[in-house]
């Protein structure tokens, strides 16, 4: 187990469940195999060491699987979004409101949490197809999980796929899922120096949503300072400031989404 965030062996305890289903499908545990159990009974009187040049990207397998997902989405004209944030910044609330407003657009959702069907149940209440991935101890989704999930969901052509990653501002940063856009959500209760403290996730994002702006009068959060920090990390970032609960600022976000699918 990882001492930093408590994540355990990924791939092993992952389950996939649709809303209303009571049985789990278990992941095939990827291709990780650790039972290299070969007898070697040749005798040597001396040992030679030999160095093999490998030169392989350590995340190469995930990147390859992500490219496969990307190709599938492209072929079906699916616009896909990977929502990342620390726990509780409002990803599911934003999804509920977004899906309700996009009634005329085909959408589907993949939910990632370590445990529970809670977020999938909330999304299902909007009438949109949703699949819950429970990662067990795993602290991020990976491309292989997304592949399993969208095959179950049977995505429609010309649709939007929202992926809500496990609430964690560190681990999901390195795992490409094959998404078109990565959206990092930060809420104003988190402190405006978040982008400076967790730069990797901002470095890898395309969009930054600053959520819960209805709470600005009650907290010390300088929106401009937060954006400044985020832009220092990644000067390509685009921002949306909104409140998922009151609906303030949602129109610009929804317009952006609609522009993406009409492209």
């Amino acid at each position, binding site marked *: 187990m990882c001492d*930093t965030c408590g994540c355990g062996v990924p791939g092993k305890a992952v389950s996939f469940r649709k809303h209303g289903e009571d049985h789990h499908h278990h992941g095939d545990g990827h291709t990780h195999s650790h039972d290299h159990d070969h007898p070697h009974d040749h005798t040597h009187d001396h040992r030679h*060491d*030999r160095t093999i040049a490998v030169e392989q990207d350590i995340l190469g397998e995930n990147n390859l699987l992500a490219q496969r997902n990307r190709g599938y989405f492209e072929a079906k004209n699916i616009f896909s979004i990977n929502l990342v944030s620390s726990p509780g910044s409002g990803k599911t609330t934003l999804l509920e409101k977004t899906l309700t407003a996009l009634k005329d657009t085909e959408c589907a959702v993949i939910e990632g949490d370590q445990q529970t069907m809670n977020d999938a149940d909330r999304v299902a209440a909007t009438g949109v197809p949703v699949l819950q991935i429970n990662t067990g101890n795993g602290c991020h989704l990976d491309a292989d999980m997304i592949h399993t999930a969208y095959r179950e969901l049977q995505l429609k052509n010309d649709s939007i796929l929202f992926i809500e990653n496990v609430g964690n501002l560190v681990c999901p940063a390195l795992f490409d899922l094959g998404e078109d856009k990565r959206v990092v959500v930060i809420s104003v209760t988190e402190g405006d120096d978040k982008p400076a403290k967790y730069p990797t996730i901002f470095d890898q994002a395309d969009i930054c949503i600053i959520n819960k702006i209805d709470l600005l009068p009650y907290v010390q959060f300088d929106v401009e300072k937060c954006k400044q920090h985020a832009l220092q990390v990644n000067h390509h970032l685009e921002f949306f400031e909104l409140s998922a609960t009151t609906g303030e600022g949602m129109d610009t976000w929804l317009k952006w989404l609609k522009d993406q699918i009409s492209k």
Partner: protein
Amino acid sequence: MHEMSIAMNIVDIACKEAEKEGAPSISIIELDVGKLAGVMIDSLKFCYDSVCKGTLAENSKLLINEIVGRGQCIKCGSEFDIDSFMAICPTCESYEVEITQGRELKLKAVTVNE
């Protein structure tokens, strides 16, 4: 930090290479890890030994070459070392800096016994 899944990938790749060569065991795995790769080297080392257990890499050594970050200013073109994503150009103070080095996360080489 997901260093556990990273460690598993490393050992998987290394074991496959060693198997291809018919080697009975691995003595050293060598990595290039950029300072901006988003990987904590201490956690990675911590996970490594437990992941190696029961594989060809059991008791092997993990050798990590840390790669320093380099950036290039988009405004004025100058190149410089950086130690964070929040880099500022030392020449013109612009923060529009493209990271040119430091994101590496690569398995360089595997040393096997014969």
